[in-house]
């Protein structure tokens, strides 16, 4: 920290700012004191050593300060030396200057206070304007409050109608799921039943299976084609066109479609049959329902009708030819 005129860049003649009253601060304090005294402070909760009501700060007026600090001496001297007279005159001048400056300061402070008061009043009006909304009185009075939410259930309960719809939805979901599992189980049972026909249970069947495996040319179960594929190969072999084809040629002809899993899946998707190529659940259901018979009957009727139509068309053509000849 530098001293003296070094503080002011070695410039003489500049004086530091005098310690004046901060009117804005005093005004703000007075404003807060107005509101601080409102309401009720429970003495139980007032901390020890502090006051519930704010302690008012007293400010001296200019006259009081002058009276305290620049009083005129009451001492009456009978004889005054010229030095004393000069000193007294200087003191009077200083006293006058001080009192003038204090009075002027007081006037300035009063003006500033007045300005601040006006500004505060304007701000109050502006803040009141902010609170004014375009909502009607009815809207304001019926707005839900936090307490209104806390005094009733937070979530609106279901109505009777909604409850009934939900119940129906749950019931339908349950039934759909049960049906799905029942159908899955039925499909598995059917698959097992159909596969069971190929199970080796007698000695003859075992020998036949061994012979078939040997004919296929491999003993490795993981690499061999399934018995289903072997059946296809055998059926293909019976066909006149491919009678002389080797196994390898037949597999090549099918373009790799004879791989395990792919054919059963395709047949299942297209025909509705099971993995073993037998009638699937849908077909059995149709037979049991009688839909299959009905379908067969319709197809037969359609065929008969078509034949009749063809016959009639042929007859008409013949009649035309005969008439043309004659």
């Amino acid at each position, binding site marked *: 920290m530098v001293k003296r005129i070094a503080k002011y860049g070695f410039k003489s003649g500049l004086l530091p700012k005098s310690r004046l009253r901060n009117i804005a601060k005093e005004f703000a304090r007075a404003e807060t004191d107005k509101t601080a005294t409102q309401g009720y402070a*429970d003495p139980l909760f007032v901390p020890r050593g502090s006051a519930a009501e704010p302690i008012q700060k007293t400010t001296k007026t200019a006259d009081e300060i002058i009276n305290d600090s620049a009083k005129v001496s009451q001492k009456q001297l009978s004889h005054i030396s010229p030095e004393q007279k000069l000193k007294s005159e200087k003191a009077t001048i200083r006293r006058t200057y001080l009192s003038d400056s204090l009075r002027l300061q007081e006037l300035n402070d009063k003006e500033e206070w007045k300005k601040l008061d006006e500004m505060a009043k304007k701000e109050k009006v502006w803040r009141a304007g902010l609170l004014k909304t375009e909502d009607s009185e009815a809207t304001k009075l019926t707005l839900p409050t936090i307490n209104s939410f806390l005094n009733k259930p*937070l979530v*609106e309960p279901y109505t009777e109608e909604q409850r009934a719809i939900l119940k129906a939805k749950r019931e339908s979901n349950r039934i759909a799921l049960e049906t799905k599992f029942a159908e899955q189980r039925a499909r598995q049972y059917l698959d097992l039943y159909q596969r069971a026909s190929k199970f080796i249970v007698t000695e003859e069947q075992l020998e036949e299976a061994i012979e078939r495996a040997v004919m296929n040319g491999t003993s490795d179960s993981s690499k061999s084609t399934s018995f289903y594929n072997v059946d296809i190969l055998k059926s293909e072999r019976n066909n006149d066109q491919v009678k002389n084809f080797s196994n390898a040629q037949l597999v090549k002809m099918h373009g790799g479609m004879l791989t395990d899993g792919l054919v059963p899946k395709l047949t299942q998707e297209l025909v509705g049959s099971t993995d073993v190529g037998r009638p699937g659940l849908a077909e059995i259901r149709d037979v049991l329902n009688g839909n299959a018979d009905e379908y067969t009957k319709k197809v037969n009727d359609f065929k008969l009708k078509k034949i009749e139509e063809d016959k009639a068309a042929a007859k008409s053509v013949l009649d035309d030819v005969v008439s043309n000849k004659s």
Partner: protein
Amino acid sequence: MSLVNLAHVCSHIQNCSRNRVPLAAVSMTRLHLQVCAGLYKEGFLSSIQRGDANKPDETFIPATPQNIATRKLWLGLKYDGFNPVLSKLRLISKPSHKFVLDEYQLRDLAVGKEVRKISPLAPGEAIFVKINNDDVVEIREAVAKRLGGQLLCRAS
């Protein structure tokens, strides 16, 4: 009432406040609404709004069983200049250690005495208490009503 969820809410609000976030969203439950209303009354929050997970509602939307999972309370956090008004929000009762005090213990805590190793109420601090009828009140209100209850959280 879940103290675990309340702990999450407390830390979320505190983190948002310390990070100078203007709005914080917490899930809408009765307990959270009660605590947030308490914070609002004590002057720690500037607003409480209902809303969904994305933003506060512009019009009133009721909470139904279908949308309750996405309903949120949007809290306006308060700042004094650049400093957060709410600097600390902590649980007092933990899920594994709950503090249930009677009216005399609450009064002692409110007037500045340590009770069961709980530091007393400091100036500018608020402690929220769950009283018997599942209402959440500030400790001074509970003392005035001569009620005891479970200490939930303290805000300062």
